[in-house]
């Protein structure tokens, strides 16, 4: 029983580390977009240090911005999907990244500000 208990706990610890430790929300200014490699390079500041992060977009990843609903009577925001080619250096975006191997990968890029 003790073996089972310790085994389950180890498995859960590993699961927790895999699930939680490598997820991070990053926001930053787009420095470069590589449509061939499906990457977005962000300049992001964390803990007083500015660094460049190359975010790899997973196949099927979405890039969205938020626009006012055009339907009469609706006043909120709705998602509008963009192509990666639409994203321009200088825009501010946020991504929820996961660490896979030595890469930061994301499934969703949210445009915060176009400029």
């Amino acid at each position, binding site marked *: 029983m003790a073996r089972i208990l310790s085994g389950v706990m180890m498995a859960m610890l590993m699961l927790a580390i895999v699930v939680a430790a490598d997820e991070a*929300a990053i926001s930053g200014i787009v420095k470069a977009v590589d449509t061939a490699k499906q990457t977005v390079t962000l300049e992001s500041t964390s803990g007083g240090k500015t660094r460049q992060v190359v975010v790899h977009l997973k196949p099927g990843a979405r890039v969205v911005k938020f626009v006012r609903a055009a339907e009469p009577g609706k006043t909120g925001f709705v998602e509008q999907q963009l192509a990666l080619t639409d994203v321009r250096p200088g825009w501010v975006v946020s991504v929820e990244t996961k660490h896979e191997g030595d890469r930061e990968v994301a499934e969703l890029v949210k445009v915060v500000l176009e400029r």
Partner: protein
Amino acid sequence: MRSRALMLLVGSGAFLALALWIARPPASLANGDKDHEDKGGHAHVPAPLEYADAHMPLGAWTDPAMIARGKEIYAVRCAVCHGDAGDGKGPAGVALPLKPSDFRDKAGVAEMRDNYWFWRVSEGGQVEPFRSKGSAMPPWKGELSVQDRWAVMTYQHTFSGHQGPHVPSEHPESVAVGRDIYVMACVPCHGVDGKGDGTVAATLSPRRAPQPRDLTTAEFKFRSTPSGHLPATADLFRTVTEGVRGPGGLMTLGLRGYRIMPSFRHMPEAQRLEVIEYVKSLNAGFRERSEVKLVSLPAAPPVTPERIARGKKLYADAECLACHGERGRGDGPSAPTLKDNRELPIAATDLTRPERFKSGARPEDVYRTLMTGLAGTPMPSYGDSLEPDQSWDLVYYVLSLSRAGRRRAGAATN
């Protein structure tokens, strides 16, 4: 057997919760700041000097036209992050590591001073400490006029539910840090109410000027603003930082460098700015003025013998020697009769001792003093009677009266 399985399940669940807590994303990876997030995106730091005089006109806070204009701008520029309800939960904001401000947070909004708010809207997250915290807030100064930035602030202010103007008299908590510093550092001389009547005041310079400033009146000596105007925040900062040079009584013997007001250079800059914001809250004039007009300070020309000679003539023509004396030693014929506006005897400054000049002894300091005068003292403003070039002539002559002054003049123009 069932109870064992139950225990295993509960134990595993607890262990999983503990593991998730331990393995939460390290701060070095995410660029958010959890403590900061909890405060709705606010970091209560004083606005820097270049924004410190940016006080919104009082009536604007509750002006329906301003609020309506602000609402239009907010819907287009701000709501995507701060939310239509001002709750900091706009669709683009919820994913940000550093959460946008929640303007419904009454306590948080009450602590924000208008100049801080204007600074944040103007510079966004591009300035420290917000940049280091990973703020995605864009700077709006390039896209919104000053009026539009004021307008959007008036609309954001409505989310807090506060009805009146957003000023320290309505929100004493916005100057609470400065008040605490004031109580510790300033009350003995300037008094609890800032009227210059602290318990130590009378002993600083008994029955003579200078006396501690009454911070509630419009009369401030050390300014870069025209005669009759309140000082700029930068002027107050300079005075707090440098202290005030002058002859004092026994109580000032411990102060370094012939000072009647100590230098607070050792105090962290943020604390000096905080206490100045409190001092400004004692005088409604700082918020009632629509803009801060500064006297122009042209670049110092090179010092030449001809310029000094012209300055010497001006020194006589402008009757400087009546108080300061022919050789600038503060021993002119009028010197013994000089009084300040409290009818207290006041000494004419010895111009051969530049280290004792109350408002500084660099050429630009002397120029500024000539342009503004020293309010409340017999020293008048020459801003209307001297051309800039003539003023520089006079500045260089005054500095030529001492070796230290000549050195300062030379250093400034070389």
